[in-house]
């Protein structure tokens, strides 16, 4: 289809623009076809698949130890949680008990990842709304967390730290001290975040009442994570189906009833504080012992189907493994949070303005590799 010609304007005088695949605020290669009436959006149609890497097909040919690495590349900002979901599914199939130490390490790492992911989101939200400076402040704190990751896991973003049975290495000796220090720093910076964006009148105007989605719609569209919780849907997998060490810690499930961009923003801001509190609870009480349960060199899952859900930074990630008893999965399905969250975008952005579309995309917190997989 050509960019010009019939696609420029429909018969009703609607203006058609293509946002993406290369666009500053689509956070990757997402292509949105937007029908406009002046500045007002009539219809949005997402076109996906620009970075489809067929991770599901790849997984069918990899062993149970190997297929986990690819999930780091799905939602690269919650690589830990993706890996954890796969590891938990394999453990469920094997009926392996994970050592208590590994459970706590997994939880700590997942919360650090969530914190850094939300920080990146905070910076990007500012950037999308036209404020460039928050991006740099967010990256300063994120950098500290990435440093911890690098020290313990060996990589900053695609850590591949979870293995079936536990974690790949033990914690780095510096881990506890360094994490405590970083957490203390981050707590001080929450105030700055509020000064720069939360209370800002322009920011509030840009987000309040924008991109509303009701509770019923959020459930029906399969929205999860902070996005659904901002509409009042209780969907925190950490609370509903606790895994790893989440049953040992006290934390709140943040719910808001606003359903708009501002509510989503506030939920994420509050979630960061909850993550900090979870880390503080666990950091001093990491149990001693093994960090990895013994598993066979070649893992073979019994025949059957295994489903495991975890709460990533963006919502519910489901891993569905169908095993036929061989050394590699027969079918793997990743129910990725972004995929469902994105599907609600056309519904949410109807009647909004172009500037709102950017705000909505920013507060859904899209990571396109997770949509395309």
């Amino acid at each position: 289809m050509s960019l010009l010609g019939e696609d420029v304007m429909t018969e009703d005088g609607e203006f058609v623009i293509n946002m993406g695949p290369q666009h500053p605020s689509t956070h990757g290669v997402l292509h949105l076809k937007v029908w406009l009436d002046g500045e007002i959006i009539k219809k949005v149609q997402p076109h996906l698949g620009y970075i489809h890497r067929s991770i599901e097909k790849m997984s069918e040919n990899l062993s149970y130890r190997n297929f986990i690495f690819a999930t780091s590349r799905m939602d690269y900002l919650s690589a830990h949680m993706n890996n954890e979901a796969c590891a938990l599914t394999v453990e469920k199939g094997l009926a392996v008990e994970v050592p208590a130490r590994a459970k706590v390490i997994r939880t700590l790492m997942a919360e650090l990842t969530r914190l850094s992911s939300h920080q990146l989101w905070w910076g990007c939200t500012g950037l999308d709304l036209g404020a460039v400076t928050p991006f740099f402040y967010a990256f300063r704190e994120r950098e500290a967390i990435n440093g911890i990751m690098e020290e313990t896991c060996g990589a900053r973003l695609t850590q591949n730290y979870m293995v079936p049975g536990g974690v790949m290495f033990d914690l780095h000796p510096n881990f506890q001290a360094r994490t405590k220090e970083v957490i203390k720093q981050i707590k001080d910076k929450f105030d700055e975040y509020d000064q720069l964006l939360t209370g800002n009148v322009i920011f509030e105007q840009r987000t309040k009442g924008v991109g509303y989605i009701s509770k019923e719609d959020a459930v029906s569209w399969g929205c999860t994570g902070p996005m659904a919780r901002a509409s009042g849907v209780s969907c925190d997998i950490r609370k509903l189906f606790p895994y790893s060490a989440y049953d040992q810690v006290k934390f709140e499930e943040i719910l808001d009833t606003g359903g708009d961009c501002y509510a989503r923003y506030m939920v994420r801001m509050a979630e960061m504080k909850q993550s900090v509190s979870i880390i503080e609870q666990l950091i001093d009480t990491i149990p001693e012992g093994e960090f990895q349960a013994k598993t066979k060199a070649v893992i073979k899952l019994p025949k059957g189907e295994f489903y495991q859900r975890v709460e990533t930074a963006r919502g519910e990630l489901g891993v569905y493994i169908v095993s036929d008893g061989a050394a590699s999965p027969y079918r793997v399905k990743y129910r990725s949070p972004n995929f469902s969250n994105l599907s609600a975008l056309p519904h949410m952005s109807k009647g909004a303005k172009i500037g709102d579309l950017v705000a909505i995309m920013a507060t859904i917190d899209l990571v396109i590799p997770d949509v395309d997989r």
Partner: protein
Amino acid sequence: MTKEELKQSLSTHLPTATFDEAGEFLNIIVTPAELLPLMKDLRGKSEYNFDYLFCLTCVDWKDHFMMVYHLMSKDHKHVLVVKAKITDRNKPEVETVCHIWRTAEFHEREVFDLFGVTFLNHPDLRRLFLEEGWPGWPLRKDYVDENMIEI
């Protein structure tokens, strides 16, 4: 409802269905023709009230396709897996459920794209990830791609 109660209730509701309790969740296996009425009841009847479709996928079992729907109720907190066995491999067809759960729209497009299962009455059934006119259905077990590199 617990797994047992759910099974009890559903077997009276739909006597022709078969059940599988081996896994974590209760599985109910139906034919494609039975699927849509069952789904409507599962969503509509207050004792089931499955308002949240959290996973929709398909498994290629070489001789047949198995549509898998993971349902959950936010109120009752029970989970049910509905499976529809599509035996016609050449022309796989099943009714869409995207009018019951809006999230199914994208998930069904994904299944159509990668497995070639046609969803009847789907409002916008197009390829989702792959371009129009892509040869074959990549997630089928018999899919061959000349460009694939064997490692």
